[in-house]
């Protein structure tokens, strides 16, 4: 009980009983890993691990885990183990224990016994309510371990007795047919039980009471954070592993294998060649090519980003300057703020629709690079505005006052004081925003993108594309006004093109993964640069 340890500040040394709780945590970890592995099809439910059938092994471990957890609670209640258990495990634990028992009771009555929905509900409420009461009303050490331990034991026994064997299937009986199969249900049940029992064991490890709940909660929070990082890692690693073969198809390294450029120096012309050749990123698609590539899409993406930045950054920063420095703070700025935030959350496909309805008719009624640039620019604009405003607002007023006190005019103050101080925030915001739009598919789908495969000859050459003509608008750039491709669109087109792909590329699957990889590399490098910039500025600021 609380107060029993009042005379000592330091935690007691690890005892044998703590080891039991720690072992239970370890056991849940093993079960967690096993169930994730079998969900990821790395471990077969029908197979066996070192001679023991997988289901039997999982069942046995679950029974062991449940037994350990429950007996730890009981021995604490009987005073064999010293803990600081409270009166009650609390409402959250009671609800958490009640729900699975409700489902078990209900499912058993209505499906296994075939009593129907009403009886199932009644039995479910009865069993769930019992579990709730068994958690809420006994002392915490019993309440937070026994119902959850029993859950693991029951699940384990169901596995062991083959009530739920590897061949188990439950047809849900819906019009659109769907079934729950053992392959899915067994790992998921194991996973949930492992998490429940791990939570209970962690509370036991902390000696119940406030510290126990702290430990229990921290285990779950750390697990969540770890899972997010692991998920990210797996996602990226998976794409890399799958994408590399396609990316390197036909790649050569060595002197003079790359595409060359002829450089003329004083009458002598000689050819400079890159020391590597990676056709996937250096070629377009053409009948004559040995290896097909996505060069037009890469170039298209780059031009898109350049165009969007050229459009949105001056506009956004200008508006931010006006709103923070010139405009009177009041209803007007507030409305603008609400509007920009609204614009920022507007779904990208809506921007696409807008571009489709507004820009396309104005650029010769066909999809074009320029329309794509502007649409992405519209998307980027609110972000630039928001981050620039934030950065400018956080520039202390003293700076402005100091400058104004020297008789410097407003615009000069902005130029020489506010903008430099706000620069880090603006730059970081812009780079992260660029990363975001570089990966956007939906808006360019409607405004810019052309066919699935763009021949290498159609790689956009915006700079060389300007032409002067005699009639208004006097200057045109066909390169800007024609549809081209971009990486995200290219990937989308590859996905939807389906079987027809095989005629164009040798190995469609590899080609797709390689495209995904290139896209990921391009977008994440923007992010990497953005995050690095932020660190750089932060460190510089903290040293100043």
């Amino acid at each position: 009980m609380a107060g029993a340890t009042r005379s000592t500040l330091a935690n007691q040394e690890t005892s044998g009983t703590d080891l039991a709780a720690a072992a239970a945590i370890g056991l849940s970890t093993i079960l967690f890993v096993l169930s994730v592995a079998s969900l990821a099809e790395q471990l077969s439910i029908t197979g066996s691990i070192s001679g023991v059938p997988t289901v039997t092994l999982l069942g046995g471990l679950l029974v062991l885990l449940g037994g350990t957890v429950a007996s730890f609670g009981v021995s604490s209640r009987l005073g064999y183990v010293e803990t600081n258990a409270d009166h009650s495990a609390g409402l959250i634990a009671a609800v958490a224990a009640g729900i699975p028992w409700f489902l078990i009771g209900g499912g058993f009555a209505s499906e296994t016994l075939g009593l129907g929905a009403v009886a199932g509900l009644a039995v479910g409420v009865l069993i769930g309510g019992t579990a709730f009461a068994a958690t809420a009303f006994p002392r915490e050490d019993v309440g937070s371990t026994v119902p959850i331990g029993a859950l693991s034991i029951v699940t384990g026994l169901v596995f062991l007795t083959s009530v739920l064997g590897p061949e188990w299937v439950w047809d849900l009986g819906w019009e659109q047919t769907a079934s729950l199969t053992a392959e899915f249900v067994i790992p998921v049940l194991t996973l949930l039980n492992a998490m429940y029992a791990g939570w209970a064991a962690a509370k036991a490890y902390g000696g119940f009471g406030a510290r126990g709940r702290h430990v229990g909660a921290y285990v779950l929070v750390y697990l969540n954070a770890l899972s997010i990082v692991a998920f990210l890692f797996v996602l990226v690693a998976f794409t890399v592993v799958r994408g590399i073969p396609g990316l390197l198809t036909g790649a050569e390294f060595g002197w003079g294998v790359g595409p060359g450029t002829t450089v003329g120096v004083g009458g002598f012309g000689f050819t400079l060649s890159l020391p590597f050749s990676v056709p996937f990123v250096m070629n377009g698609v053409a009948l004559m090519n040995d290896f097909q590539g996505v060069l037009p899409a890469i170039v298209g993406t780059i031009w898109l980003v350049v165009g969007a930045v050229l459009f949105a950054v001056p506009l956004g920063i200008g508006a931010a300057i006006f709103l923070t420095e010139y405009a009177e703070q009041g209803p007007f700025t507030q409305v603008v703020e609400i509007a920009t935030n609204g614009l920022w959350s507007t779904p990208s496909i809506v921007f696409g629709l807008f571009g489709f309805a507004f820009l396309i008719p104005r650029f010769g009624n066909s999809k074009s690079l320029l329309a794509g640039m502007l649409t992405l620019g519209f998307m980027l604009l609110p972000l630039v505005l928001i981050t620039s405003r934030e950065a400018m607002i956080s520039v202390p007023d003293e700076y402005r006052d100091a400058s104004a006190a020297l008789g410097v005019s407003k615009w000069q103050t902005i130029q020489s004081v506010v903008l430099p101080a706000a620069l880090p925030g603006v730059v970081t915001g812009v780079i992260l925003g660029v990363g975001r739009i570089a990966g956007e598919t939906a808006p360019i789908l409607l405004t810019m993108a052309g066919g699935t495969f763009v021949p290498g000859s159609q790689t956009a050459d915006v700079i060389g594309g300007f032409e002067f003509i005699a009639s208004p608008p006097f200057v045109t750039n066909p390169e800007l006004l024609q549809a081209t491709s971009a990486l995200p669109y290219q990937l989308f087109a590859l996905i939807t093109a389906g079987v027809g792909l095989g005629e164009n590329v040798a190995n469609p699957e590899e080609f797709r993964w390689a495209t995904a990889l290139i896209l990921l590399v391009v977008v994440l490098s923007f992010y990497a640069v953005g995050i690095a910039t932020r660190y750089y500025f932060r460190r510089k600021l903290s040293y100043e």
Partner: protein
Amino acid sequence: MSFITTLIKRGRSRLREVARRQGRRARDFVDETESEALAVVTVVALSLVAALVGFLLVSALTVVPLATFVVATVYGWFRHQEVTARVLTLTTTVSTLLILGLIIVFIFLESIPIVRYESATVFGVTVPGLRLFVETRWDAVSDPVRFSMVPMIHGTVMVTLIATAVAAPLGVSAALFLSEIAPAPVREVVKPGVEILAGIPSIVYGFIGFTILSPWASDQFRLNGQGTYLFVGIVVGLMALPTVVSVAEDALSSVPESIKSGSLAVGTTDWQTMTSITLPAAFSGVSAAVLLGVGRAIGETMAATVMLKGVPRLTDPLYNVFYGQETLTSIIARNYGDADGLQMDALFIAGVILFVTVLFISIGSQYIEWRMRRQFGGDV
């Protein structure tokens, strides 16, 4: 929404005053500014307006006022920088607002025909667009041609619910971890990780979902064909996760340190302090974070487009999450290509629904954050 009403009320009561003040300011501006600068500024403003009108009217002559604008601006920049800078920044502000206005005007305009077409009569009153929401049939080919939004709204609701169930608890827990629990070196790893997660393009998620998850789910649940709301929801939830994490983390770390220490000083665990003090105090910010996550989930397009079946109909039964038909976003991305006439307009009405819903969510979350700032006064 009291803050809107406050805004409006305050705005209305002060409108006259503001107008008077603006009038005075404009007069002062005219009085104080040299006449040449004034002329330049006028040319800049007029030429810009003319260029805009030209652009809206799809005129090839747009380039003339645009060139005038550029020349006048460049001239003004060198001769009257102070004034020109001010006018230029004002111009950019107005352009930003104009873009928002144009978006609203254009997507609403384009959707008017379909609203007319799908009118229905109840009790003798013709309600425009009613059939969009009371029938469930979407068929652009065979008679009667109908463009009900109900199946897509159902799909969006399903996906959003599942996504929220994923993103909200995991996101808030991760935000707690980052803002209150993680030791500095761990945070330095996890935080950029979450940001990178936000950066992975949705089409990549969609691609992995399409090639890995969909076949897997189809196999596991013995489904006919591929595409389930369940897994689209989970994927979209993971995509909305970073939004929830970063906004919720901001809210949590803006809870004043003094009350956190106050709680710890009476002898509570970190976890008790988080659940009893920090989370309740940041409740509005955290709910704003979840709301924004919901907004992201609603607007998510590409993952849904490539993972769903693309057949607009309700699932049977309605809660059958193992089948994924179509959402408001995916129907646009899938059908824009071969749509024309009414069907194209129907896509615009889907866009309108999306736009309005997400705008309301955005305003709602801003309102919540505004209230939170008020609650803590200057402390935040």
